[in-house]
């Protein structure tokens, strides 16, 4: 958050279900280093929140399923998707 602006980008993160209760918010904007992926962002968030293990989560970037290694770009919306329990 305190990094040089040219080396960081802003992304939006949305939270659902248990993750929304842990973080206490439905969405937030986060400044992350250029080259970040969902994996590094999750590690970064883990300093702030007591997040569950990432093993069972899936990833969406801009409303598409993605991998933990997908490189994020400015203004991307990232979602960590807990195991679904609908139906």
């Amino acid at each position, binding site marked *: 958050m305190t990094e040089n602006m040219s080396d960081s980008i802003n992304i939006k993160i*949305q939270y*659902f*279900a*248990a993750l*929304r*209760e842990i973080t206490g918010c439905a969405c937030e904007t986060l400044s992350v280093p250029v080259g970040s992926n969902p994996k590094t962002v999750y590690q970064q968030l883990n300093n702030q929140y007591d997040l569950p293990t990432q*093993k*069972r989560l899936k990833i*969406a970037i801009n*409303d*598409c*399923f993605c991998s933990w290694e997908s490189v994020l770009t400015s203004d991307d919306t990232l*979602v960590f*998707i*807990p*195991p*679904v*329990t*609908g*139906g």
Partner: protein
Amino acid sequence: MTNFSITSEPIVSAELIIQLEDPDCGAVATFSGIVRQHNKDREVTQLHYQSYKTLAVKEGNKILGEAKEQFNIVNALCVHRVGDLNIGETAVWVGVNASHRDAAFNACRYVIDEIKTRVPIWKKEIYVDGDSGWLEGAG
């Protein structure tokens, strides 16, 4: 194609099944998922469903498209409810029509199975003792 939808209103299966009337379809199979009073011996008073709507609608329609490709059916519909639901209310409804029952049954089963594992919707149970919690999915 928006055959999959998410609603916060009560699901009325009678209104949905009408949309599957087709003079070339001899078979209609439906499935309703209902809020139960008990889950693993704990008494449930209410459920709350939350969805990641944009992706849920996209993935839901993808599943219905897969059903049309894989089975010899004519149409497939699915509605999932979100918000607060009481015992006995319908949380999800799936309906499929086809010339013959084999395809209708198999496609209906495929759709609900895939919905339950792939569509980003989550369920929170509220128990009689006031406790509540988001269910743990199969992951």
